[in-house]
């Protein structure tokens, strides 16, 4: 069973949230991020190469041009491999745990699995980033003292946090289940 909704992120790009329902005990939420735009890529490349050409006319050294090409290529590869996220997936498996996968534009996938025994609660947290944004996060138990919280894990990366406006009920409905039911299902 699949379901798709559109949002915009905090910088204004378009996001698509897909909800998949595999079985009563397994759900997946898939957030697709805006692709790398050709316009910004062209703009950055042109700026770097113009600056390199300007330096070349001053110094008369052709190494600058080769260096600019290398820097552009390496910078683009590094950006695609380490920074640009294509898709983020949240897989919730009943009584096993929660898995978060980020797939980058270069194809790299980084996965984290949190066991259900370590999860204390799933909450909606507020943060200030030029305005107030709301993001889902998972509270982890402290291994030494079970009543304390050791870590707060945000579910989606800040670059792709969907901007959910509206009142509390709207925010709670983003992930398809109201807040209270999300807590029970995660047990």
């Amino acid at each position, binding site marked *: 069973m699949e379901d798709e909704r559109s949002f915009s992120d905090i910088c204004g790009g378009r996001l698509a949230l897909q909800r998949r329902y*595999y079985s*009563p*005990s397994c759900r997946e939420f898939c957030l697709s991020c805006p692709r790398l735009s050709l316009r910004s890529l062209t703009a950055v490349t042109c700026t770097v190469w113009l600056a390199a050409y300007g330096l070349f006319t001053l110094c008369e050294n052709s190494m600058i041009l080769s260096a600019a090409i290398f820097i552009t290529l390496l910078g683009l590869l590094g950006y695609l491999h380490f920074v640009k996220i294509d898709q983020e997936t949240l897989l919730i498996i009943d009584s096993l745990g929660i898995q978060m996968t980020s797939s980058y534009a270069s194809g790299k996938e980084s*996965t984290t699995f949190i066991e259900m*025994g370590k999860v204390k609660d799933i909450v909606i947290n507020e943060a200030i980033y030029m305005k107030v944004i709301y993001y889902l996060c998972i509270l982890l138990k402290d291994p030494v003292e079970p009543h304390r919280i050791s870590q707060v894990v945000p579910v989606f990366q800040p670059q792709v946090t969907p901007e959910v406006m509206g009142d509390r009920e709207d925010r709670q409905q983003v992930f398809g289940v109201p807040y209270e039911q999300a807590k029970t299902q995660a047990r």
Partner: protein
Amino acid sequence: MVLKAFFPTCCVPVDSGLLVGRWVPEHSSAVVLAVLHFPFIPIQVKQLLAQVRQASQVGVAVLGTWCHCRQEPEESLGRFLEGLGAVFPHEPWLQLCRERGGTFWSCEVTHRQAPAAPSAPGEDQVMLIFYDQRQVLLSQLHPPTVLPDRQAGATPASTGGLAVVFDTVARSEVLFRSDRFDEGPVRLSHWQSEGVEASILVELARRASGPVCLLLASLLSLVSAVGACRVFRLWPLSFLGSKLSTCEQLRHRLEHLTLIFSTRKAENSAQLMRKANTVASVLLDVALGLTLLSWLHGRSRIGHLADALVPVADHVAEELQHLLQWLMGAPAGLKMNRALDQVLGRFFLYHIHLWISYIHLMSPFVEHIRLYCLKIHGLSSLWRLFRGKKWNVLRQRVDSCSYDLDQLFIGTLLFTILLFLLPTTALYYLVFTLLRLLVVAVQGLIHLLVDLINSLPLYSLGLRLCRPYRLAAGVKFRVLQNEAGRPLRLLMQINPLPYSRVMHTYRLPSCGWHPKDSWGALCRKLFFGELIYPWRQRGDKQD
């Protein structure tokens, strides 16, 4: 809770039989370790399981039946399989079934006893989780979770369910000794049935390592006994030993070799990795040394290097002389105090002349730094006099004090002289400190490089590159194709440890070549003109 059945991928294509494994009631998980094929004699099966339980302290039992047949199972087979539940009583009883050539599975769970409370609809769901048995057997979770209770079946509920699965598979090696191709009373299918071959060279090396280690350990103890004798503790040999980095490195490597060839077996995997990393580090050291030596000796490069050194030293001395001539003139347009300028300039020119004759690097700069330091102290105390205060040594603070007129007069005069001579001295100090910092920085870089080579965990990095499943940060799940009404199927894979964590966890201890002072303390020392030796080892005496 949903019932989780962990099923090994190697048992997916095998024929029908019994499921043998461990049931963990706290997490409602059944870890299937092997499939026992027909025909079998129940008494022999029970004996084998009792032996395995005794040897491995893992509560293995018959968990259910596995049916892999051409089409839907016939009535008689179904009843036969259910009847087996009476022979091997286990609560709950699993019945897994798969059609030959089909992708979908069916799973039934039978509870013998009626449940205490009426369960909610959908409570008795089953989830099938496939895992690669060989990888799970060999891998090691980071951070290692210590399961305190090693008795058969007892597990505290606070430990993660996955750590229990890894632990169960790792401890059940006894079960994996016999295979369905062996001529034994029972025929089991597990990861060994896939036919992964071991290397005979590795086995021979393992047999030979015992006596070799014994021999080398005795040799090394002899060498350390010689090294620890009294002669080396007396001056000047102890002084020489502490100054030369070769001696330091030799001592460090001797420690490593003693660790490698010690006859005590590694107790846990962390110690084993440490030993392996040490071996790799020693081998790298030897390999780098031999490469460098062969490169230097080839085409008489040593001669060329030596020939190049003397003109370089001359060139540096010439540049320094030019620098001093520049300082003695009007450097950067600043007006200096002519007399003091000439004195300092001539003083250092003479030192450089001495240096060209004797190649002694540090002392002229050190003398000047002391001069600057004295000057700063004198200035600060005269400044206090200027304001009418003095330093109370007893109370370690500044107190007011009434001076006599002649004291005040001389103090003010001296203060003014020192203050106006300060720019000249400060400029010389700045130039020489920068030069010295350059030299110290180069020394520091070399020390850092040596430290890096010494402490790099090569074996762990190689393992992470070639066998990433051995070092596990966790697991990851993938949902396989599913159909409504059928149990959910997941594939569990090992999530390897990132390289940064491998470095952090398995770094070999370094020999202490790192700076003692923080950046703030360093700046403070530079301003007040104290001598800096940032790369001193801990335990060295101050100059």
